[in-house]
């Protein structure tokens, strides 16, 4: 199929349709609304279910109900709306039903603003809803990757009976780029043995996240954890750029990863041998790849559009074996590549610091904002 110019949000929506999503439930919020708008037109065209709910709470519980039928279902929102959905996401995780959720992140906390941000990293990757569960989290950096990861998200959700969250942001959602959509896939016609979709002629099935008996809940939690171990074994994804001869490395995901790519090229023109590792699966996190990277380079710079959330995961992965520095912008401010180039220059110029926390050094550097 030929490439078309598409907005990130619309590309995710159409990719979900091509991947066979059978029901979408959502509520408008900038900078995600184009996704819902696209669905409102295309889902009825395809004879599939679209509901604009009265709130995010209602939408996620509609997703929960529809997911229990074993059909492909999804919702999408932006940061404050996703916060509202987390209770339902936890219930789905506890019930072990698959669903795809898209978070087009914006500046926060609170109502914040509608500019691009990555400040939901901790919320989405490390928790969100209550209880012992792990969502799969995929972070695209372009319109094409938004499409590819949306299709993958439905497959992974079903394969592992898991929540899969596409962690995008306002920049990727609003941007237009040429991209290629997959062909229309046929809708599913057979459904899993746990699905509740009418018990006529067979024994009734029961889906719930309630385990009043604590030992039974413990067994359920260990089942989730064993499944998560398989996910960690099989579903780690990342991309490397200019790392073959690199003396320094940047780690950045999504939009920050793209800004870092521009910075890497500029720094290389200045003679600094720097490369980039861009995590695509934020959960499971590419721990081994980053640990190995730490052994090859003289220093790592983490770049994010938040105050250093993934930074903590990079520090865990590198185990203090390599100096790590941090550069970020927050609150909906997007860093320009030259800011990241400067951070690379500071790292390369030394002296290498191994005491204290990189976030503290970055805070000192950013003190002009105080």
């Amino acid at each position: 199929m030929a490439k078309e110019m598409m907005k990130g949000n619309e590309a995710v929506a159409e990719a979900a349709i091509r991947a066979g999503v059978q029901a979408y439930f959502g509520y408008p919020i900038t900078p995600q609304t184009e996704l819902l708008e696209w669905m409102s037109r295309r889902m009825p065209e395809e004879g599939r279910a679209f509901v604009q709910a009265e709130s995010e709470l209602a939408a996620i519980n509609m997703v929960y109900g529809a997911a229990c039928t074993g059909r492909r279902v999804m919702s999408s929102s932006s940061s404050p709306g996703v916060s509202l959905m987390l209770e339902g996401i936890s219930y789905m995780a506890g019930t072990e039903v698959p669903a795809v959720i898209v978070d087009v992140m914006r500046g926060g906390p609170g109502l914040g603003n509608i500019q691009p941000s990555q400040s939901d990293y901790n919320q989405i990757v490390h928790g969100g809803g209550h209880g012992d569960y792990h969502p799969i989290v995929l972070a695209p950096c372009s319109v094409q990757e938004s499409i590819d990861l949306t299709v993958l998200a439905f497959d992974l959700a079903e394969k592992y009976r898991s929540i899969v969250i596409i962690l995008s942001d306002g920049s990727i959602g609003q941007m237009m780029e040429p991209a290629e959509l997959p062909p229309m896939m046929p809708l599913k016609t057979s459904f899993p043995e746990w699905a509740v979709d009418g018990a006529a002629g067979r024994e009734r099935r029961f889906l719930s996240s309630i385990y009043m008996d604590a030992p039974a809940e413990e067994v359920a939690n260990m089942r989730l954890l064993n499944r998560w171990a398989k996910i960690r074994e099989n579903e780690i994804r990342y991309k490397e750029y200019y790392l073959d001869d690199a003396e320094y490395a940047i780690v950045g995901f999504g939009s920050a990863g793209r800004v870092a790519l521009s910075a890497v090229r500029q720094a290389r023109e200045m003679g600094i041998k720097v490369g980039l590792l861009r995590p695509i699966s934020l959960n499971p996190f590419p721990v081994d790849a980053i640990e190995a990277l730490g052994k090859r380079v003289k220093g790592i710079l983490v770049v994010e559009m938040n105050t250093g959330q993934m930074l903590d995961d990079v520090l865990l992965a590198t185990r203090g074996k390599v100096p790590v520095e941090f550069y970020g912008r927050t609150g909906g401010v997007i860093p320009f590549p030259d800011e990241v180039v400067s951070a690379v220059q500071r790292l390369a110029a030394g002296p290498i610091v191994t005491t204290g926390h990189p976030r503290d050094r970055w805070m000192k550097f950013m003190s002009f904002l105080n």
Partner: protein
Amino acid sequence: MQTEILIAGFGGQGVLFGGQLMAYAGMEYGKQVTWIPSYGPEMRGGTANCTVIISDEEIGSPLVRHPRVLMAFNLPSLDKYESAVAEGGLLVVNSSMVERSVDRKNVRSILIPANEIAENLGDKRLTNMVMLGAMLANQPVLPLEAVEKALEHHIPERHKRLLPMNIKALRKGAEFKPVAVK
């Protein structure tokens, strides 16, 4: 090789479509492209801008601090972004809406009365095409023909009958011989 074009003006001046047209043309010409709008709680008559990047390789950041080209459709846009243009870059100013000259000495500047040219062609809404034509003649990031072809492919269906006028406006802009600004 990468060229960044920042297009800025009032909502309704065709700023966003002008940028999309460049992106479509770049894509169809075999280049890598990105188009990213400013978005916010904006309304009609407010400011609008977008950044288009046309490149030979995978594009990193869709935004840059110093774009190679600025197309300023009105005074607030020139005031805000004049200092941002990369040294040796190009500044295309819609002089119909900007009652001042350009301060920067280390960029190339084109002052073009795009509103008047568009009105003389019969429709003020052609301003964006006049501006694009002038830009392309001075920063050959894509051949004019590539943009004309993209226009043919992507002009909204309801405006199809306006295609010849739009192409005429592009060419008029490209033919414009500016008074040199030092």
